[in-house]
């Protein structure tokens, strides 16, 4: 029995896109369009009077753009916001990721080529995304920058053996991931001496933008992973669109084998590769995200003797992946992003001693 | 939209009923589903047809108002839900002798994009599916003009008219310059 329909607010200034979005959403019986507004300001006012279940937000609008609107809404009436980004130029991409920083839960590209036969694939993705995001519980965002970092006691890192052993750090994330990853990378010391390999679930076409965006604030260089590339310490590699990422003998391998948990790139693929080829010489970190991608594999990694970390429930936008891993007992530690930064700092200090 | 046939006045309800019954009959296995759907009608004892995709609706002819300064084949104008539409006598257009008694009390409204007009008919028969193989183009001792406007003749001697040609032909348009 379908109970209530999901109330969607569409924030978009182009009638064309409104028409397309309406068509896609209305066709599907789960949704009810409770409002259509043309700019960020109208969106904030709408949300203060009515509570939609989820918002689709354009970035580029007059009066108030999507990024500012997201900030405003997330600090007054937090609601799941999906950014619909045109994703074609720099300013857009910047604003898109800024919006993620401000608390938007997901991004997806704006529809293009509606007459193409593949369009139904886009429709499916959009519908799925809107449905799933409508269920995410979002909390009021407080400006991260002002929060004090928590510290963990130093004693934890006395085990030099562990830190000397670690050759590669693998991070996997989905919904809510980009912001945490950005935080982590920004918080690393500049002389960070480990290579980091990341699989971040993100809508088609945004990976390059993600890499650029991360580079703005990251302490270490971030690049898109290339096939056969040798990993270097102090560099961060991000899995590209539509390819699995694995590492063997310090060389990155891209694979187009079928999606895992419906995802490609899949976190699970990365962790499995780490478990097989590095065992306890790898560090695995599973961040916020929906679904189960990577949960079992984190456990498998832990079973080889490696240290594994899962993000804690409270700070996760969606606790799916980490939560599942914890249930399977796959996490050595359950940390907040701050604690993760600390842990990595500690690792680094020990290694460089 | 182009494929619906709408009957307007009350006394058509009989025909409607017959039609409904006919449609309700299960398709005979032997009847091959044809390529073309046509609307058949009579005009002085001969059976003609148009492809239904050009037929917008069929009406009973009520009041036909004549217009001066129009060629012979333009019989006049009628109002269809507020829209003024001309009614043509295709036999006059082809300069054929109108032999036999003609009732001419039905109008078939043809439409393609913006071009529309009505064609006079005596009786509307029914809608049929024919295969394009069934259409023969030879025949009528004829009038070459008429042949241009025919798609073909079925084995039942039904003359299937070329709706597209009618609707796109310049000759049919009345355009008088002063």
């Amino acid at each position, binding site marked *: 029995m379908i109970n209530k329909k999901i109330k969607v607010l569409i924030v978009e200034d182009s009638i064309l*896109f409104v028409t397309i979005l309406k068509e896609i959403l209305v066709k599907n019986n789960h949704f009810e369009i409770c409002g259509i507004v043309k700019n960020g300001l109208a969106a904030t006012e709408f949300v203060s009077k009515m509570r939609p279940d989820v918002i689709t937000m354009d970035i580029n609008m007059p009066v108030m753009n999507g990024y500012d609107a997201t900030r405003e809404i997330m600090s007054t009436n937090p609601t799941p916001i999906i950014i619909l980004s045109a994703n074609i130029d720099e300013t857009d991409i910047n604003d898109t990721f800024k919006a993620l920083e401000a608390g938007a839960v997901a991004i997806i590209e704006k529809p293009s080529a509606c007459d193409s036969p593949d369009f139904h694939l886009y429709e499916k993705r959009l519908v799925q995304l809107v449905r799933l995001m409508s269920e995410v519980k979002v909390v009021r965002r407080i400006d991260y920058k002002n929060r004090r970092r928590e510290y963990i006691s130093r004693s934890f890192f006395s085990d030099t053996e562990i830190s000397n052993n670690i050759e590669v750090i693998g991070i996997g994330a989905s919904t809510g991931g980009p912001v945490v990853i950005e935080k982590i990378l920004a918080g690393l010391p500049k002389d960070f001496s480990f290579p980091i390999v990341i699989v971040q679930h993100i809508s088609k076409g945004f990976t390059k933008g993600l890499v650029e965006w991360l580079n703005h604030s990251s302490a270490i260089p971030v690049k898109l992973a290339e096939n056969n590339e040798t990993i270097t310490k102090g560099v961060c590699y991000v899995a590209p669109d539509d390819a699995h990422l694995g590492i063997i003998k310090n060389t990155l391998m891209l694979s187009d084998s079928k999606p895992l948990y419906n995802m490609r790139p899949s976190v699970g693929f990365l962790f499995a590769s780490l478990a097989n080829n590095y065992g306890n010489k790898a560090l695995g970190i599973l961040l916020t995200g929906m679904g189960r991608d990577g949960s079992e594999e984190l456990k498998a990694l832990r079973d080889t003797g490696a240290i594994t970390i899962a993000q804690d429930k409270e700070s996760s936008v969606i606790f799916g992946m980490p939560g599942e891993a914890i249930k399977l007992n796959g996490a050595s530690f359950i940390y907040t992003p701050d604690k993760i930064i600390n842990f990595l700092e500690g690792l680094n200090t020990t290694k460089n001693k | 939209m182009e494929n619906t046939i709408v009957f307007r006045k009350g006394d058509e309800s009989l025909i409607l009923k017959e039609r409904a019954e006919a449609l309700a009959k299960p398709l005979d296995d032997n009847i091959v589903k044809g390529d073309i759907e046509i609307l058949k009608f009579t005009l002085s004892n001969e059976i003609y047809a148009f492809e239904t995709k050009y037929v917008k609706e069929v009406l009973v002819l009520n009041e036909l108002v004549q217009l001066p300064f129009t060629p012979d084949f333009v019989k006049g104008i009628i109002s269809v839900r507020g829209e*003024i539409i001309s009614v043509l006598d295709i036999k006059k257009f082809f300069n054929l002798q109108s032999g036999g008694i003609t009732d001419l009390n039905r109008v078939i409204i043809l439409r393609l994009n913006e071009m529309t007009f009505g064609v006079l008919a005596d009786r509307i028969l029914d809608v049929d599916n024919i295969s394009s193989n069934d259409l023969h183009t030879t025949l009528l001792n004829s009038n070459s003009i008429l042949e241009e406007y025919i798609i073909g003749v079925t084995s039942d001697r039904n003359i299937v008219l070329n709706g597209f040609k009618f609707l796109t032909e310049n000759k049919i348009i009345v355009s008088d310059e002063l």
Partner: protein
Amino acid sequence: MDENFLKRLIETFKIEAEEHYNNLANGLITLEKVKPGESCFELVETLHREAHSLKGAARAVSFTDIEDVCKSLESLFSAVKKDALALSKNVFALAFMGVDLIKEMIYLNPVEIEDDTKLLSDTFSLKVWELLNLSENETSAPPEKTFTTNGDAAVNENNIPAYLELNGNSDFTSAQSIPNKEQITTHSSKDIQLQENIRISVQKLDSLYLQAEELLSSKLAMEQFSKDLQELSASINSIKLELNKSQSALRRNKYLVERQNEFTDSFGRFSEVIISIDNRLKVLTKSSVENTRKTGIAVTELMDSVKDIIMFKFSHLLDLFPKAVHDLSSELGKDVDFVMSGTDIQIDRRILEGMKDPLIHIIRNAIDHGFEPSEERVSNGKSPKGNLSICIKHAENRKVEIKISDDGKGIDIEKLKHSAVKKGLISLEKSNELSEDDAMPLLFVSGTTTKKIITDISGYGLGMAIVKEKVDKLSGTINIKTKPLVGTEITITLPITLTMLRGLVVQCSDRQFVIPSNYINNVNRVSASNVKRVENKSTIILNDVPVTLLYLCDILGIKKHKTTEDSSFVKIVVITFFDKLIAFAVSDILEEIELLIKPLNKQLARIKNISGATILGNGKIVPVLNIPDLIKTTEKSFGKTTDLTLQTNESARDILVVDDSITSRMLLQDILETAGYNVKSASDGMNALKIIKESHFDLIVSDIEMPLMNGFQFTKLVKSMDNLKDVPVVLVTALSRDEDKIKGMDAGANAYIVKSDFEQSNLLEVISRLLQ
């Protein structure tokens, strides 16, 4: 995506694209006007955003050509925003080029875009790329800001192609009900309104209007019904009275006393039935009257609301004009300052649509012929820039006045008169007698039609006639005032809505027609004895003035039924047209109605003398007469009644025109008919021969280059036939070589006129001479 949705989507895209285009065009024009030192960041920002948004939208519907142009435009504006590029003439020219490309592409589907346009688009992208990649290295160019619309320089630099020509026939089908530029600039919206303004497709509007009109018919039908009921009631009443009378008569008659009971019973029952019918009728009548009243109010209100929706602001059309003027000025090498006022005034959308071409034409004339080159202006003490303005204001009687003024060199009346004489419209003597004001109408009289194939022949030639025709059609008036060296002022007055028309329903034998009231001077009845016949023309005296009398039935070709017409009186409708009075005799004058002229369907593209049809309250369809047409028709058959007399006043001669080009045939036909001849035409020699066999002609005008049988062969043939050899043949042709002329003479032609100096040569003079 299903097909219907895709189609709708593309329609939506086109509407949105047009809006972005308008914003880009107007934004650029405003940007050009910005003075150095003034900030223009917001403007550039807006332009950037518009290009960006259009790009995204184009991408969604796979209009990649537009997307590409927008990409380049966007980078251009982005560079300006960042101060990486200075706003130079070059940049503006490039920007306009891009904007023009967009305009060109908007109305086509991607597959329809021609290769030329694609090539242009590639050139554009390349140029933008070059500019952006080279300007970073350029250190010497100082930033220039202002530009006046001094088109010539910008156009020629760097071989940037000239501005795309204004296409006066471009589609005006997409419409916004209310312009929503305001929405983009407001900075706060206190209330939540999901959408303050909505877009309605024109088809929906028209459909709504049609439905409202049907309702009006219903309302009128209901009124009729109520009336009928009341009449019925009255009839019943009289039956009752009769009954009573019979009853009393019966009682008094003693002979029937025995049967009295029977009769009384019978009558009693009869009475009861009648009374019950009467009662029911009364109830019905009462409720009918009440319903009619309520419906009447509701319908009137609905009609008012709908009429309101149909009203558009002038700006809806005129917003396109600054750009058009800008383009035209550059194209024609003139420097023009353009101002508009009163564009917020509203008018019936259909009238606005009808005025688009005329206004463009008038503007073009002004820029092309009205304005002198800058140097000339300065030496005459005028400002170097020409001033062109369009002012709209309300006029009395629910009318609107459009005034187009320029301070150019005015219209040369002498030249006008001269040209009219040449064209055979007026005799030399008459033209000398004409005062300046009286000569003005000559601008409009060229005898041409609405066909767009025939464009300006020479300056004020045929174009103005088309303008006048359009204005007439919309029931408006046009007036021109001009002063040499000072300027010209054209004033067009139009009704605010088309439906403000009223019409008179007249009976012609067994048929009815409507004459639009705005042409009617008065309606009268004259005694048959007062009708004077001179030759084949009838005249009557009205207010001491002789007025031509025409029988409408005759003109319309309707057979008269002599039945109930009272032959001692003639009912007439007196028409005013162009300061002339004409009386039309009709069988009967019925009623005056509120006239909603419905257009005829496309199959009846244009019928002589008929402008459309209307539906009366009783549902009857009645054709509406086109009075200007009718006048022209009658003038041809019965000779002109104007002050501009003709050269040939005798009974009309018959001329046969032979030419395979439709354009030429029509042109010739027009010229000849205006001069009072009856013209038939044929498209080649063979056809011509057929026609000649059937009817008599006083003269033949023939082209030479024709298929099947050329003019020389045709002439030879004609001259060889006994019954035709005396018919003068005039060859009108493009062939100007001497040997062709000799060939013509050899074939027996009576005259040989070369088409290129057609206007200069006196075709009519030649014909008139030959016919003497």
